[in-house]
């Protein structure tokens, strides 16, 4: 036991660490996503399970391909969990019975184009999962809006493992039979047909999540619980989710009060589509959101407001992905403009005045 060690390179302090790591952070986010995901599996059966793992595999494949191309070591980047998380989030935003090729294309697109082309983890301007989702939505609008009514595992007519695989790989034989519209989609169609919302026969709201929708977006309750867990684990702070939900609910509340025939209620906005997933898991993406608390509040408010605007006046029934991408683009500007106050200085960075003795 000698102390005769020789450190050749000088290393700066600190010589201690809080213990967190990137893979830990990603693992905790995945953990928080698990309840909502399992619920999605139960709700939509085996095809959803297959779509989920295929999308993640594709995202990992895309990452590995790029790393190989750039002759970077595979292990550290593949195992930090960021690519898997991207694939996971993308899968949750797809229609549960979507064909496998959709997930594969999306997964590859997310990691290759939206992440690695920008320079890899930490360099991407836009949230990769949302870029892929929007790209798919724009390119394959039909496949991306093939919602189905819930067919919980074990219920009559739910496909078993093999049949689920066949549905995912080869497409459902008679999708029309079980097809169903999402609430937001339905509302938009009715409005565009000139039927006002008071007459339209909207599907019932569900806090637990038994409704038609994307694989993992339906259960507001479980997503909320996951989000709160993330806040408690100090992975994210409350600023972005709270601001985004407020930014969405507030205009909805006002508009609904003024004209309930043309505007959905705040509760509907909060409980449908990707609002909850977006607020807690998408908008809070570290890389693409601002660094300061005030910046995060602005960012969150912007996401919420844009979501409401797009949902209410845009061409698409759902707007979370677009809203988040737009605010991602604003993030560098927010970060440049809003900086924390430095100790001993005022907001503009001028030293505080020295009082006359």
């Amino acid at each position, binding site marked *: 036991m000698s102390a005769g060690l020789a450190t050749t*390179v*000088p*290393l*700066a302090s600190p010589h201690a660490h809080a213990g967190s790591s990137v893979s830990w952070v990603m693992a905790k986010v995945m953990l928080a996503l698990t309840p909502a995901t399992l619920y999605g599996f139960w709700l939509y059966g085996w095809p959803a399970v297959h779509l989920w793992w295929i999308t993640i595999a594709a995202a990992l494949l895309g990452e590995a391909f790029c790393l190989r191309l750039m002759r970077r070591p595979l292990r550290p980047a593949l195992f930090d969990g960021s690519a898997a998380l991207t694939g996971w989030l993308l899968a949750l935003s797809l229609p549960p019975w979507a064909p496998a090729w959709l997930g594969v294309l999306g997964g590859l697109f997310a990691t290759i184009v939206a992440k690695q082309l920008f320079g890899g983890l930490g360099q991407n301007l836009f949230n990769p999962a949302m870029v892929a989702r929007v790209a798919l939505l724009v390119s394959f609008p039909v496949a991306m809006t093939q919602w189905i009514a819930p067919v919980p595992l074990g219920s009559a007519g739910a496909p078993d493992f093999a049949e689920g695989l066949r549905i995912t790989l080869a497409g459902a034989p008679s999708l029309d039979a079980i097809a169903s519209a999402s609430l937001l989609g339905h509302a938009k169609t009715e409005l565009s047909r000139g039927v006002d919302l008071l007459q339209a026969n909207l599907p019932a709201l569900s806090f637990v999540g038994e409704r038609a929708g994307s694989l993992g977006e339906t259960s507001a309750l479980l997503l909320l619980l996951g989000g709160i867990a993330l806040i408690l684990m100090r992975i994210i702070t409350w600023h972005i989710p709270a601001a985004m939900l407020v930014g969405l609910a507030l205009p909805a509340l006002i508009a609904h009060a003024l004209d309930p025939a043309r505007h959905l209620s705040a509760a509907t906005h909060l409980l449908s589509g990707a609002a909850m997933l977006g607020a807690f898991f998408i908008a809070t993406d570290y890389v693409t959101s601002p660094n300061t608390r005030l910046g995060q509040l602005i960012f969150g408010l912007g996401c919420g407001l844009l979501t409401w605007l797009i949902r209410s006046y845009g061409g698409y029934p759902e707007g979370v992905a677009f809203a988040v991408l737009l605010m991602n683009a604003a993030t560098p500007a927010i970060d440049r403009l809003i900086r924390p106050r430095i100790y001993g200085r005022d907001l503009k960075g001028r030293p505080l005045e020295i009082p006359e003795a």
Partner: protein
Amino acid sequence: MIAAILSLTLLGLVLGFGLGFAARKFHVETDAKVAEIEALMPGSNCGQCGFPGCAGAAAAIADGSAPPTICPPGGKALVEAIAKLLGLSVDTSALADEGPKIAVVQEEICIGCCRCLKECPTDAIIGAAKQIHSVLREACTGCAKCVARCPTEALRMEPVPVTLQHWVWPKPERGAPAWA
């Protein structure tokens, strides 16, 4: 289709004119810039850059025919200053800066010929005929002009020793793990 082509062409034209106009409008008199750069340079006219003097180097840097990194005695500080003046971005960390050097007289060989003394642009060498010369550390810019003049090769360029006060933390290597 035709409308699109037309509008794009128009857009291109407008932007092109705009850029041309801006270039003219915001053109800075080179002479002023040369003078400003020259003011930053060491001014010892040592010629290590390959130009006859600091003014020549400054002119070349100003018109872009020489990089702002050509002045060895100026070091990184000069590069930064020039880059700031010209609005360039230069990665100084990539500069092969093996640290400043100064001339040192090897006393056994010096014959006291006074030739080096006349050459030094900053009068950093003291000595008299038939006396051993020596270099004032603080005044030597490391231009190495004296070295070539010495008939007995008594002058050598030696790196300025790093001391505790002047030691600089190395920059962490990027990408590669910072510690093994």
